[in-house]
């Protein structure tokens, strides 16, 4: 837990964020250049196949985000620390964004290749149900009328959603499949050219960096929001055991600055 705390504090500093932002931009630019110009087009699909370099990383990110939501929700229910709620909601927002992106990109790819914008394939159907669960998660957060209640409710949805997803998947697998087998995670050599695989992995790295960056920013906004609202409701001692430095709440944008001023009161 201490390592996690330390990592989260370290990631939250302005310098760390700037480094992360630059690394993310560089990786995304490299992916764009590699995916659009360096790698040859697929022999069968042609240029459309280049969508893979964003579609697959976006999907990976969506699943990573929702996985983090589930773990953070569990951690919140176990410990009652509001920090885990902030992690969960930050990850859920990013997950919803990238899950939508995954579906849109997949749709654009599927139309020329399969011949359909949408097909009732298990993986597609599960993904869209997953998206709906976390859209409901976010909408529920707007309904709750106290911060503690919001955290409890959404953690419950986070945990139930986690158990629901494999069930949804298995139940739709008993429909009929048209999605190809997992290409990278299949035992044996990936059935992909090395340059294509390298670009794909670069894309995954770039998107993971983007996730880390977005998480640090969103977590800081969450912290400042809580300071601004003057509600720090972790069930253990609000400020005693938590290594949160009161003064140097690093502030960036306008929102953060006003929030920081309000938060300065309890320093």
């Amino acid at each position, binding site marked *: 837990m201490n390592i996690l705390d330390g990592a989260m504090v370290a990631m939250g500093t302005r310098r760390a964020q700037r480094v992360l932002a630059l690394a993310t931009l560089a990786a995304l630019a490299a992916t764009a250049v590699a995916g659009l110009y360096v790698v040859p087009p697929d*022999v069968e699909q042609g240029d459309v196949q280049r969508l893979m370099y964003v579609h697959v990383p976006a999907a990976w990110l969506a699943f990573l985000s929702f996985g983090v939501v589930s773990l953070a929700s569990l951690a919140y229910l176990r410990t009652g620390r509001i920090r885990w709620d902030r992690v969960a909601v930050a990850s859920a927002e990013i997950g919803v964004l990238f899950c939508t992106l995954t579906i849109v990109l997949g749709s654009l790819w599927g139309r020329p290749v399969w011949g359909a914008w949408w097909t009732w394939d298990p993986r597609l159907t599960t993904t869209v149900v997953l998206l709906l669960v976390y859209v409901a998660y976010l909408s529920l957060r707007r309904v709750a009328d106290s911060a503690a209640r919001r955290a409890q409710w959404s953690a419950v949805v986070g945990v139930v959603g986690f158990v629901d997803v494999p069930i949804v998947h298995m139940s739709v697998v008993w429909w009929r499949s048209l999605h190809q087998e997992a290409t990278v995670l299949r035992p044996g050599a990936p059935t992909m050219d090395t340059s294509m695989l390298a670009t794909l992995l670069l894309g995954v790295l770039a998107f993971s960096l983007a996730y880390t960056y977005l998480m640090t920013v969103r977590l800081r906004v969450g912290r400042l929001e809580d300071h601004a609202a003057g509600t720090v409701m972790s069930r253990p001692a609000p400020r005693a055991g938590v290594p949160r430095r009161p003064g140097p709440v690093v502030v960036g944008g306008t929102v953060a600055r006003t929030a920081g001023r309000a938060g300065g009161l309890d320093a």
Partner: protein
Amino acid sequence: MTASTVTRPVGSATGPAPRRTSSPSPRLRLLVCAAVVVAALAWIAVRGLTSSFVYYLTPSDIVVAHKADVGQRVRLGGLVVAGSVSRVHDGALRFTVTDGRRSMRVVSTGSVPELFRAGQGVVLEGALRADHRFHADTLLVKHDGQYRAPDLGSSAQEG
């Protein structure tokens, strides 16, 4: 809410995390419930792994085993036979699909994906009609998950 006073003791702000008091011990309750959830998921997964899923019927299924009645909406999967593809005046695409043993003539009226070509795996949605042709309104290409760069010079295929 009155409920809050029940489940959360007051004045615990500085103490350790309060334990919810309930008659079965919380740990036991957690273990039993988690075990039920895990067992249920395992049962679902086992059923999923042991059942053989049929995602589409093959021409043999229809011709030999008669698994689809005339007019019944099914999915038909197979490889497009080389040289069988033709487009007739009404815009419908005609071709033959095969599973290696039996083949079936298809009339497809839906849109045609870019990847459609002889030798490609396709899945068709439609029904067998009385003229012994499979009338499909949806034509989906089943991509094999192989990604290759165009080979320079030769047409050697790895993989």
